[in-house]
């Protein structure tokens, strides 16, 4: 694997994994997703509109998530996203893969100090 491609895979893959993880078990709207990423990463990861929404649309295109408009009394409607069955499957796979990846990285980087 070339460095370039790892880098690209990593960025793309991790962003997707973040979104899928946040939608696991409950539906959320775009603003909420962006907010959660920012707060849970303590500000380390920030998704702006220009990168967040294209990603959401892409995942929706792939059939991993599904968005729909929800109207609540006294509010303007919002678009909520939830995991599809396919999305749940992908998420499960990626969680294991990610764990393996992190473990691999840890072993290598950890070895430096061992």
């Amino acid at each position, binding site marked *: 694997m070339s460095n370039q491609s790892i880098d690209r895979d990593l960025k*793309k893959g991790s962003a997707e994994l973040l979104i899928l993880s946040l939608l696991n078990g409950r539906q959320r709207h775009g603003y909420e997703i962006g907010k959660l990423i920012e707060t849970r990463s303590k500000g380390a990861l920030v998704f702006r509109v220009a990168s967040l929404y294209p990603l959401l649309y892409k995942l929706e295109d792939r059939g991993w998530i599904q968005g729909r408009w929800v109207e609540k009394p006294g509010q303007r409607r919002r678009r909520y996203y939830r995991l599809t069955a396919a999305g749940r499957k992908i998420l499960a796979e990626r969680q294991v893969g990610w764990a393996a990846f992190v473990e691999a990285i840890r072993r290598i980087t950890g070895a430096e100090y061992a």
Partner: protein
Amino acid sequence: MPDWAQAVRDRLAGLNLNGAREAEIVEELARHLDDRYRELLAAGLPEEQAHSLAVEELETRDMLAAQLRKTRLPAAREPMGFGSGGGNIMESIRHDLKVALRIIRAKPGFSLAVVFMLALGIAGNAAIFSIFNGLFLRPLPFAQPERLVDLDETAPKWNLKYVGVSNPDAYAWFKGNATFDGMAFFHGGGANLSNSSGVARRIKTATVTYRLLDVLGLKPAAGRGFLPEEDRPGGAKVAMLGYDLWQRLYYGDRRAIGQVLKLSEEAYTVVGILPREAILPPDAEVWTPLAADPNKASPFYLSGVGRLKHGVTLDQAKADLARIHREQAQAKDDTYPVMQPLRDRYLGDFRTVVNILLGAVGLVLLIACVNVAGLMLVHGESRAREISIRTAIGASRARIVRQLLTESLALAFIGGLLGVAAGKVCLHALVSLMPDDTPHWIRFDLDARFALFAIALTGAAAVLCGLLPAVQAASADTRGALQEVARSTLTRGKRGVLSVFVIGEIALAVILLISSGLLVQAFRKVLHVDPGFRPDNVITWSLRLPVAKYAKPEQQLAFFESLVDRLKSVPAVSSVSAASIVPLDGHMGYFFEAENGLPTKDQRPVVLQITALPGYLEAMGMTFLAGHDFTRHDEAADAPQVAVINEAFARFFWGSTDVAGRRIRYPGGNNKWMTVVGVIRTTMHYGLDGEIRPSVIVPFSVSTVNGMTIAMRTAIDPHSLASPAREIVRQLDPDLPMFDIRTMSERLERSLWVRRAYSWLFAAFAAVAILLAAAGIYGVISFAVSQRTREIGIRIALGARPAQVMRTVIGSGMLLVLIGLAAGLAASQLSARFLESMLFGLSTRDAVTCISVLSGVALVGLAANFIPARRAAAVDPMHALRAE
């Protein structure tokens, strides 16, 4: 409140989204910006600042549009390339290749193994197939060769498959047939060609009927063919020069036409040049007209070739000739016309051998494929983790598949390239093994289409098995795969596939080894056949006296006798004499009857008749069972006629070898009786694995010949006798060329070349097969052990002794080996049937061969299992457990 919608809309301009979708996006993004704005206000920021921060979320308008364009337009699916965005296809292929080569280099052992196995399989196949192709598939270089048939006569009563066609029969067929466009006959011979400076050399010639070139569908390279009036008794002495001889004698000058050639002291005018590509008989250098008298009886000696009329089948033509044969005046029930496609007649001898070799290389290719497949599978397994990780972090299945595909293809390509190169070398070696008498118009070029086929086949095996892990790992089952990886064991399915691979490889190797063992055993059996003469230290060479110069038999006898006398004076010669035909040199058939012997009404075996000078039998090292040789007194024309017979003759006619003094004669009341003065042990005249025929050796007084082969026995290197012999011949007659100079050992070698070649080729293939199979077992078992390190570690930690561990590992490996042995043994009994005709009476169940092969393979299997087993036994439990 700011107009977020407008801000978003501005930035989507130019995307040409459909109205409804754009409205949705605008609404959603506007809502987001609004949420953000409110939040910022709530945090206490002034309106102006909150607004600008919210708008910043949209970053530059190009950025947003660009990102959205990628996701919202139909063509903007995930790009296949590595580079971002489109990227050009060549660029991405080059990138794939670069990565593939890096991975190949990173695993030199694996890559070398795959390349080596592919190359091995492809090389053998390309070489053998090229020969097969040259012999059987490439069209003969004649016009519409499929319409050409070989014409001959068969004589079952004489125990002869082909006897040749007699003049009257040839004429009757030619005149009377209704199924042929043309028919021609020819007879190969030799002549002494003298040039202007008087140096003679022996060339191969053919006498042919005038239509031969026409029937073959060829045109003279220059000049003309023969005319009907030249092909009659007393016709003009004309000749057509073979292309190569024309080049040698006249350097391809057309002025050769009209020149006079001296062939065996007779003058022939050159009227034409034969085309280069095709001559029949294959080695003839000069053609002259047959000029036979159709009305005179003749021996059976002609070869025939006919061109079937369009749409006529072989069976129709056979029926046609059978009708003519029946209608012929003289009632003949000894010979019958036979015909077959031209190619079959000339190359039929090789068909079985080449077919069997093709089968053998096919098996080797199969083993190579299986091995490569197994390697790729194991290799893929060890990469499953990497693939899973890449998938998990976002690499698409298509991309991983493409990466593995590139790797497999790169390996297949390198292996194929090496294989074709090695195949060319093998082919060259094989062709140099071919006998001189293979028709020179048969070409053995490496067949490009086949090389491609072999590469494609092995490449496909590599690619398919290389992709399997990618497809699996990249499929929805990734989680399962990863968990397995975590446990570091093979799936049951894949382990099953690998087991089948091992069993299959063992079985295939056993088939090849048993077959080759049988062939080599048969070859050794042939080598141990007593030839009936002593071939060592004898040199033989031939002379043919031109009838124009030595017309009378007495002259011929006098010449040969004085030659033999002079040769006796050459130092180190222990005995020397001459005969019309020496062992392994040909056949001259006659019929005999024996006084008070078996009547020959129903069965008239053809008897090999040899005219010999006294002392020939001794010089050739033949042994007398009874009686003695004839002497020079017996050679006088008026002396009582005598003969020496071989054991086969004596036993056939009299059922005994104690027959000295009994009499034989040519059939017919008027022929003189010859007294049998001696009986010799039967020689293997037609080859050590050839047939045995009755034979009669007669002196010159019984049958004269103008050509003889001289045999000189010595105690030193027989080759050293050639040049003093040549000097003596020159003193006697400077125009006489010596030809066919060979030691008897060389003749024996030559007669065995086909058997030797295929036996050892087969053995080579079998050796490759067992090597590949051993590598396969070793690879699979080592891999299984490496995958079970943790389990083995636990067992050892729980108190298993190393010996127990080894037993378990070896046991599971040997189980596969044993199943393979059983399967291979069973299959080899089926496949050996194809070999039966080549086994020289050896049973296909030859116990020595079967047992040694089985135990040999079992040992190899054990060795291949032993190394990984020892590694397993040496596993350090702590280390093994920590490794995970």
